[in-house]
Each structure stands twice: as structure tokens, then as C-alpha cells.
């Protein structure tokens, strides 16, 4: 896809995510908006997948370690063709199976159930080890939050990935600088993440998480790097695309009210329209 087509898909994804959270009156919109471009690049350009056979043993794997960002993940999965958009209407509803956090047993395209922060990268390490054992060439991707990396298990997983030289593993950190209680720098400083991952013997790439050229270059570099796993530190803006939500930790896990929803949708609709005519 061209960058314009990717941007249009991401803009539609942002609109779907907003609708999901508003309809459910709950969900995590801030991090969903910050990670939307990363997920769009992954699912439309990077992952070797076929939505028609979501359990193909040779497929690339994706683990949403920051599992609360289902509004973004489910939107992108539906846009990619894993299930009809209509199913998003039952997000977080007892009437369906679109659970608040990713559920591999019920949502097509979800490779690992996640949600309890810090656990997804370990599962991704296991998948990458399995590829090694089976001599398969699939790659494994995991998306982490920069708040999530405060969990010690992330660093246990990082050590083990380096021990086994898992160059088929790529972790992306959505560095939006915010977590529920405020700025990551205030709540629990996790920077410098580049030096931390490098000290854990990972290959580190910095990227702009809202620029498809930058993301693509990072993923391509990761794919060709041999001998160590890669961490892509993708700088992003939490709430990206909705001006009044940007860089405000208050929008981590809160649903907009009707007036806020109208305002947000006006901006997101305008973005879609702008990209449609291009």
C-alpha cells in the first residue's frame, strides 16, 4: 500500500476505535490512537499473514502485549479482513466475544491472550523459539507500552530472547510518554529505553511511530539484522488524531461523553475525508 492508503486505513481505524469505546462507554482510547499507525504498518505491510487462514503454522505472529489497546487491534484486524466490522459493535459487551483485552480463543487473528501487562513479550519469545525448533522462517512481533516496561517480567523476557539470539523476534515499544497516573517520567522513569535494551543485548532502532517511512525502514532493518532480537522504540503521541485527547493522561482509559464524542468524530471524520480525496 502507498503511504496515503496506509494513512487512510489508520484514519478509519481511529474512527472505528473511537466508536467502539463510545458505544461500550469504556475502553482505552489514548494508547489505541498512539499505536494505530504502528499496527496499520504491521498488518498491511509487514506481517506475512492470510486472514482467510488465521492459524496457518507458517504465519508471522503478533502479540499485543499492551493488551488494553484492543480498540486499535480489533479495528485493524477487521479492516484487514479477519472479521466483519459489524462485530466491533459488541466490543466489551456480554452479548459477544469482543472482550476488553485480546482473547485468542474467540477473536480471529489474535495470536495470544494478553492484558495483564508484562506477559506478552514472554509468549512472543516462546513463539520465536518454536520457529527455531521447527526450522520455520516466520517472524514474531510484540507491541509493548513504555509504561508496561516497568513490569520486571519484560526484562526477564528480554534476557531470554538475547540468550537464544532470537533475531526472528521484534519488539516495538509505543513510546507515548504517558501512563494511567501521569507522565511515565514522573510515575516511574523507564528511560533511557535505548540504553536499557542495548544493555540487554538487543539491537535497538529509533523510529517515528506516526511516520510510515520511518516505521518501514525500522522493520526492514530489524528483518535483516542477525544474531539478536530487535527493539524498535517508536516515538508516538498518546491520543494522536484527536486534538483535545493528545498528550493528556486523562484519556488513557476513559470513554468520551456524547459532546466529546461528537467533537472527536468531527476531527477524525475530517481526517478520513481529507485522505479520501487525495
Amino acid at each position, binding site marked *: 500500500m502507498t503511504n496515503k492508503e496506509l494513512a487512510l486505513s489508520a484514519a478509519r481505524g481511529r474512527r472505528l476505535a473511537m466508536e467502539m469505546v463510545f458505544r461500550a462507554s469504556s475502553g482505552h482510547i489514548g494508547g489505541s490512537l498512539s499505536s494505530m499507525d504502528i499496527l496499520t504498518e504491521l498488518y498491511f505491510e509487514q506481517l506475512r499473514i492470510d486472514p482467510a487462514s488465521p492459524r496457518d*503454522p507458517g504465519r508471522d*505472529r503478533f*502479540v499485543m502485549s499492551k493488551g488494553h489497546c484492543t480498540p486499535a487491534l480489533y479495528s485493524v484486524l477487521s479492516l484487514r479482513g479477519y472479521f466483519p466490522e459489524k462485530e466491533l459493535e459488541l466490543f466489551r459487551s456480554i452479548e459477544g466475544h469482543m472482550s476488553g483485552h485480546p*482473547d*485468542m*480463543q474467540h477473536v480471529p487473528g489474535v*495470536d*495470544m*491472550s494478553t*492484558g*495483564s501487562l*508484562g*506477559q*506478552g*513479550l*514472554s*509468549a*512472543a*519469545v*516462546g*513463539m*520465536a*523459539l*518454536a*520457529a527455531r*525448533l*521447527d526450522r520455520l522462517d516466520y517472524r514474531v512481533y510484540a507491541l509493548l507500552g513504555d509504561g508496561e516496561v516497568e513490569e*520486571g*517480567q519484560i526484562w*526477564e*523476557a528480554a*534476557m*531470554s530472547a538475547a*540468550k*537464544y539470539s532470537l533475531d526472528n523476534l521484534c519488539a516495538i515499544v509505543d513510546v507515548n510518554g504517558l501512563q494511567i497516573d501521569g507522565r511515565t517520567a514522573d510515575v516511574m522513569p523507564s528511560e533511557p529505553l535505548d540504553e536499557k535494551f542495548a544493555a540487554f543485548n538487543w539491537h535497538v532502532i529509533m523510529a517515528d511511530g506516526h511516520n510510515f517511512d520511518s516505521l518501514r525502514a525500522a522493520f526492514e532493518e530489524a528483518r535483516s539484522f542477525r544474531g539478536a532480537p530487535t527493539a524498535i522504540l517508536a516515538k508516538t503521541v498518546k491520543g494522536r488524531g484527536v486534538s483535545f485527547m493528545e498528550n493528556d493522561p486523562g484519556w488513557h482509559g476513559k470513554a468520551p461523553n456524547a459532546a466529546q464524542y461528537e467533537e472527536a468524530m468531527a476531527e477524525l471524520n475530517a481526517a478520513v475525508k481529507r485522505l479520501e480525496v487525495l
Partner: protein
Amino acid sequence: MGEKKATRAAYGEALAELGAKYPELVVLDADLSGSTMSKTFAKAFPDRFFNMGIAEANMAGVAAGLATCGKKPYISSFAMFMAGRAYEQVRNSIGYPRLNVKCAGSHGGLSVGEDGATHQCLEDFALMRAIPGMIVLNPCDAHEMRLAMDALAEYDGPAYIRLGRMAVETVTDSLEGYEFRLGRGVVLRGGSDVTIAATGLMVQRALAAAGILEREGISARVLNIHTIKPLDSELILASARETGCIVTSEEHSVIGGLGEAVAALTSEFCPVPVVRHGVEDEFGRSGKAEAVLEAYGLTPEGIAGKARKAISIKENSK
């Protein structure tokens, strides 16, 4: 009969044998492979053994990822760290997605001995059986452990199995008609006055207790409950009806383990006195394994005392 062997030794040997039968079987340990005996597998299949270091949470998650790709992972550490430290990873990354990971908690109970309270896990049954869909096993001897491992290898789903540090007498190999089936208890000795439902190394002690009681003219039935979940409700309820009272015996806290499982079952379907024998609401302490078990009353005489109590409650309520 009579050979003394730790169930952990049988675990390691079983893994090495099963490894030949199942190419998808992989084993992970957290720097305790010489204690959990997973090293026996590591020696036989070095390419399928992963030492994850002192990081049990990550080990559980890595096993989950391997299982999503069709592997059959067995992970082991001490029960304290497997069921305790990694509880939430076992629950959310293994139990919730119902992944085929077998979690082995070695050195369970007081019989860890000298290491003391921080390493004596008395809560693993309580923690693991609370996870939906998790099966929980506690074989009583090396022979039963071997059979349990065969059954587990054929079972597709999450499971917890406790291994013991101490060498214990093998009793199940010489029993007429003994058969291991997941979820089915075994009647080791018939009796009509009281049922002793025991698990793990308390099984041998329950048999000795039945001998003590016999000399007093009390007829005790002994059940070997190797599968704590799913509990063999048919056998336990039949025993409740036929003997009118039950003693449960486990090397575990009386809170949340076999005792409470049996009490909950009987109170709902066949109310009879259930007296729980185990470790009361307290921590363990250091000492030689046998001395610690003795200090906490986990002895044949301890079980016999509970049996007399159960019978007297039954008689008094008539």
C-alpha cells in the same frame, strides 16, 4: 513394593522417556533442573531443553508461547515459585487461553525440610485448583508419578503436578488391580467406620494409620486421591455414604486444599463429618524432613487421631 524413591526422580525419568515418544515435547526449568530432575531430560534432549534462569514468570509465558505453536511444554521449579511466584502468569497466560502447558512444582510441602518456611509451599493446591480448567495432580510415589506422566502427556490442556523432594516408599506398584486414571481416586484399603482420603506422601501414612486403627477395632477405608482437581466426587460421596465420616490428609495447608474440596463436596451432596488433617494456618520451619513432618503432626498417629475424632462426631450426632 518397598523401594524408596522421590517422585521428582520419576518425573525426570518420565520426561526423558516421553521425549522420545513426543518430538513436540519441550522442557523448561528455572535454574533448578538438578533439583526438579528435569536435568534427566536435558541430558537426553539438549536441543529441546531451555534453562530460563531464575525467572519463573517469564518461563511460564515462554511456555505459553511455545504451546500456541503446537509444542508440548513442561515447566518446572519449586512449588513455591511455580504456583506461588508465577501464579498470575500461570492463570492469565496459560490457564485463561487453556494452553497445553504442564507445570511441575517440586519440593512441595514441609518435606523440603532444612530450607524452611520460605521454600515450604503449603498453598499450591489452593492456588492452582482455583484456576478454571486447571487440573491438579499429586502422585504419592514414583510408580504413580510415572503413570501420571503418561496420562498427562495424552491430556491436552493446562495442568499442575506436585513433585516431592523426599524419597518415599513405593506402594502402588504391588496393588492388585491398581490402575491410574486422571480424575479417579483409588481405594487402597477397604473399611466401614471411617474414610481416610489422602494425597501425596500422606497416602503411605494413611495406610499406616489404618493399621493403628485396626488394632483398636476401627475399620478404616483408605483412598488415594492423586487428582485433587477434578475431584473424584463419585468415589468420595460413595465413601461418605458407606462410612459416615471422612478424614482428609495432605501435606498442605488445611485452607484451600483437598480437605476443603472434600468438605465442600460432601456438605452439598452428602453431609457427613469431615475432619481436615494437614498444616494448620501457619508457616513451616527448618529441620530434617521427617522431623518437620513429625513436628506438624503429619504422621500416621496424627491421622489416626483425626479418625477417632471424626468417628466420635459421627457417633455423637446420631
